[in-house]
């Protein structure tokens, strides 16, 4: 009994208790949603059919999960070996991001038990969302396979691991294709709503803006989560991983800076293309400038400055800032500047926020569970020589 009692007390850390409570309340609301319909927990209306659940879970969640494809490309296709220590972590972040994007989708779909219909039952190939559905499903499987060597090492399944490893290059290339297409497709979805999305955000360049910014988002997530692991999961990491974190953050910072610069340039081109300069002096214009200057151009400079000065702290701060900027952009497009011309809009219901907090908590706990068991932040002793 004593033996059982002690681990239980150890388990009752303040973090776990708070996390547990949030999860419970969120799960309760999810049960309510599935017994009484979406109206019971969201502010969805006929004018505003999508809300915070999708803005966060899908539109912000997917670009922030571009980490796997960005790092996979760098390490496996371009041979940037110096980034190898974080590649597994990047793939894990990506995989969980997609997995939980699907979880949010399941909560938000009217009939989630039909989620496989676009693949097997009834098809709408002219829909951009059809493309998104297929690609997210394929990419989720692709990332599961990409991450599988870590799980197989943990399970000590040597032969399977060898097979899984043999797929790496193929999977990485497949993953880049899928990512290019569905990251941009998420933006392309809004091309179908020209009258509803504010003209400052509506542009035929939306798909490419979404794609470019997703790379910056993915890189920033690797920097940010790397920092968290250094702080909280140190004992599950090995020395090479920990030693590599800071130089890698600096390198990723300058890569993110370049990406953000292209993103900024394309945003300005889009603005010029739409010839919407005069809108900049309206309240929506000010809000647009906050995003453009404060959350694209500023982090672009900060990243460049910080990595040239070897200032890891500033790189990390900028990564968090950039993540905020990506979330802000996706919220603007899918929620805030959407239906901007309609009077009295409710943006979201507080219960949606609780559900999001709850699912994100589960996501963090899942990440911690995996990263503290499988060789993610370290190399498995057995395979180190390879």
């Amino acid at each position, binding site marked *: 009994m004593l033996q059982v009692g002690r681990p239980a007390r150890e388990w009752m850390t303040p973090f776990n208790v708070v996390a547990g409570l949030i999860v419970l309340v969120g799960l309760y609301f999810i049960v309510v949603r599935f017994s009484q319909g979406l109206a019971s927990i969201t502010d969805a209306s*006929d004018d505003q059919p999508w809300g915070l659940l999708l803005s966060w879970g899908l539109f912000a969640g997917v670009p922030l999960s571009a980490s796997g494809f960005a790092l996979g490309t760098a390490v496996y296709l371009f041979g940037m070996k110096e980034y190898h220590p974080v590649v597994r972590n990047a793939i894990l972040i990506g995989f969980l991001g997609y997995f939980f994007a699907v979880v949010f989708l399941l909560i938000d779909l009217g009939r989630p038990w039909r989620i496989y219909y676009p693949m097997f039952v*009834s098809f709408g190939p002219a*829909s951009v969302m059809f493309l998104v559905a297929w690609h997210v499903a394929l990419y989720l499987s692709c990332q599961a396979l990409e991450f599988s060597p870590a799980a197989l090492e943990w399970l000590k399944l040597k032969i399977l691991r060898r097979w899984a490893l043999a797929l790496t290059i193929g999977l990485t290339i497949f993953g880049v294709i899928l990512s290019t297409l569905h990251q941009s497709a998420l933006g392309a979805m809004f091309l179908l*709503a020209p009258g*509803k999305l504010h003209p400052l955000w509506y542009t035929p360049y939306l798909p490419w803006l979404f794609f470019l910014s997703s790379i910056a988002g993915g890189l920033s997530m690797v920097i940010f989560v790397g920092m968290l692991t250094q702080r909280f999961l140190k004992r599950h990491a090995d020395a090479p991983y920990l030693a590599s974190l800071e130089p890698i953050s600096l390198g990723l910072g300058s890569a993110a800076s370049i990406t953000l610069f292209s993103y900024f340039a394309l945003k300005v081109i889009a603005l010029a293309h739409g010839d919407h300069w005069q809108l900049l002096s309206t309240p929506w214009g000010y809000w647009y400038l906050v995003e453009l200057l404060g959350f694209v151009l500023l982090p672009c400079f900060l990243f460049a400055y910080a990595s040239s000065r070897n200032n890891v702290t500033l790189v990390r701060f900028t990564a968090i800032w950039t993540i905020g900027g990506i979330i802000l952009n996706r919220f603007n497009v899918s929620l805030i500047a959407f239906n901007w011309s309609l009077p009295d809009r409710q943006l979201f219901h507080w219960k949606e926020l609780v559900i999001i907090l709850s699912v994100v908590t589960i996501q963090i706990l899942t990440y911690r569970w995996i990263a503290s068991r499988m060789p993610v932040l370290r190399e498995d002793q057995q395979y180190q020589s390879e």
Partner: protein
Amino acid sequence: MKTGNPRHAFHRRGFLKRAAAALGSSFFSPHSGSVLAQDFPGREDRLGMLVDLTRCIGCRRCEAACNQTSSLPAPEIPFGDKSVFEEKRRTNAKTYTVVNRYPNPQRVGMPVYVKTQCMHCDEPACVSACLVGALKKTPEGPVIYNADVCIGCRYCIISCPFYIPAYEYSNAFEPKVQKCFMCHDTRILKGEVPACATECPVEALTFGKRRDLLVLARSRIMENPDRYVDHIYGEREVGGTSWLYISGVPFEQLGFPGNLGTTPYPMLTREFLSFVPLVLVVWPALLGGFYLMTKRRMQEDRAESGEPKKPEQTLEA
């Protein structure tokens, strides 16, 4: 409808074809993407409705008829009650059509009543949005819906430029998209006129072939140039709609979405979709090339540093 029963809809070949389509390869073939503008499948003699706003008296009998024929729940405020005009209403999951009142700037005291419902676009945004093909433009004209395959993503509602489709947010188990189906199953297929048009006491609604309705609308405008503004709303808007409106007051003053343009909405995503096969072909070649370059470089490095060359060794370990 072919997709009426999801169980029959699953064919292996169909699946493979669609899987290919999803990956983009179907865009190579001339037969794919039938929703795209060039291959608009609408029949020449497709049906439509002409609404003459100068005739409508706001009696709301069309609303009542629609409610009854579509078996919708009784409204909270009865159809005879004029107080509903105090506020602007929109279609919702229990109401396929609404009549709103607008002031008439030309003749004060003679308000304009506007009936709103699905416009049954010729190339509907909602149809091109639906990822399971639950919404379809029928050859007869109406845009119809198959609740048996709808997954409830509500992208159709996002895309509709007229703010028409509604969703049953309070229904946990069988929520449906709701909108006017132009009485397609209940009346048109039986050769009958949609319920709203039969009930209208002043012939503000004329049902017929869209072609003929355009001629009729044009002749009314020509014969009474003082009575009408010279615009048939729906003739060109978003590529044309089955429902057409003529009015004495400019449409922008009557709550009609202005400047929608004449481009059919499916065209808006066409360019993006046509880019898909390009990525599918170019990316693997490009990335594979990069990989081979990298691999070679690493082998050379290794050879220089005197390590034995291991050709099968790749980067992944």
